[in-house]
């Protein structure tokens, strides 16, 4: 039987084309598509398989941010209280911190406490089976602690292999293990969380050296010099993110809920 080389070439090109198409989409897209005869099926941000509507009005957008919210009235109340706390306490504190404390000191404080979060990142890398990341995280910790004078300077930023490492947390590990969001809750001060991430938050706190110190020396908890910098250092960024999510919205609460769930789904897919 004679095989026409042009037909073979065609088949090869068609196969290669679909392979390229699929691999590029898999690598870079938040949404991947499995082609069907009519409307294609896609995987949304939360990993659920949904079908694109022919008229594009009923596609993934309606499902990307869905989460059970059984205690919404209570959550809305807590959200309102948090909003007032952010507005009248945290924002002035953050402004004062940015004004009074020089930029170089702020950066040093940020770096020290960021370096102290090493156990959380390392343990969760291991729990997610990312051994290479765990190794790089350890390397980063040693470099910053030794060459960066206890983590004040982030020397690792000068080493390309140690920049932009993933920042895993316990909630993300639970997601990797296949545990869903569960119900949505708004915690006092901490803000939006899913049930899964609330348990994860407890895990993160348990992996924090600042928490260990407070267990061994309970009096230290009341020493603002130890505990305050860790809280204040991230205020500016957290308030910035909160503003970005809740400004120019129809409903602050729903906007924050939707953004939180989508963002966490993306973090879990990394």
């Amino acid at each position: 039987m004679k095989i026409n080389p042009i037909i073979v070439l065609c088949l090869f090109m068609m196969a290669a084309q679909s392979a390229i198409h699929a691999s590029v989409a898999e690598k870079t897209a938040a949404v991947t598509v499995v082609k069907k005869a009519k409307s294609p099926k896609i995987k949304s941000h939360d990993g659920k398989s949904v079908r694109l509507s022919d008229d594009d009005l009923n596609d993934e957008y309606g499902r990307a941010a869905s989460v059970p919210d059984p205690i919404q009235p209570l959550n809305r109340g807590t959200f309102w209280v948090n909003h007032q706390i952010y507005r009248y306490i945290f924002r002035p504190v953050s402004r004062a911190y940015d004004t009074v404390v020089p930029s170089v000191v702020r950066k040093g404080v940020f770096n020290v406490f960021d370096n102290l979060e090493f156990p959380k990142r390392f343990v969760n890398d291991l729990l997610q089976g990312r051994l290479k990341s765990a190794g790089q995280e350890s390397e980063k910790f040693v470099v910053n602690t030794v060459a960066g004078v206890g983590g004040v300077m982030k020397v690792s930023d000068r080493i390309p292999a140690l920049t932009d490492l993933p920042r895993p947390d316990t909630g993300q590990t639970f997601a990797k293990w296949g545990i869903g969001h569960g119900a949505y809750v708004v915690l006092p001060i901490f803000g939006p969380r899913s049930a899964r991430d609330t348990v994860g938050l407890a895990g993160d706190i348990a992996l924090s050296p600042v928490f260990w110190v407070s267990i061994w020396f309970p009096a230290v908890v009341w020493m603002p010099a130890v505990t305050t910098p860790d809280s204040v250092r991230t205020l500016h960024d957290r308030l910035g993110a909160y503003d970005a999510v809740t400004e120019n919205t129809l409903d602050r609460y729903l906007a924050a809920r939707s953004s939180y769930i989508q963002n966490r789904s993306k973090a879990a897919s990394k």
Partner: protein
Amino acid sequence: MMKRQLPLLLLVFCLFSRGALIASTDEAEKRLKTAVNQVTEIAAHAPDRNALAAGVKPTLQNILSFETMTRRAVGPGWRQFTPEQQKEAVGLFTTLIIRTYTAKFTPGELPSVTFKAASSPAPGRVEIPTTSSYKGSHYDVVYRLDESDDWRITDVVIEGVSMIANYRTQFDAEFKQGGAEAVIKALNRSLATSK
């Protein structure tokens, strides 16, 4: 005769379809890059936020498909809007999107945008992932463009958060309470009170 030409026709078809895929992502990328450069240039020279908003408006109107964005943000309820209500909703949502977009910029502070390989998750759709560095932070931003809209942006996904999915959640709640009127009222309220 026809049997002999079949392989050749197949080859031409393969080449054409592969070429069309590359051409479509190229065209979408080209349009997006031009718009990003224009916005960056305007942001660099804008004396204040108002000037920035006014300056970038024509560029955004050229690269964003406000009609599609509004339709998708509203979802299935869009069919129950009258043509007048649809027009009003598009106008209000356009203002809200421009305000949301420009609120993220500080005049004079420039973002650095790195473009990654584009993909086509569905026919006629292209997604262009980028990394934006702004004020010392890095953000993953994915631009979604549609061929049916002359390769205009129909959604922006920042750190996994789709702008359209986010507004859909809010529009759904309003629509369930009072239909199209409630959505338009909520848009007006938001524009009157938000920054």
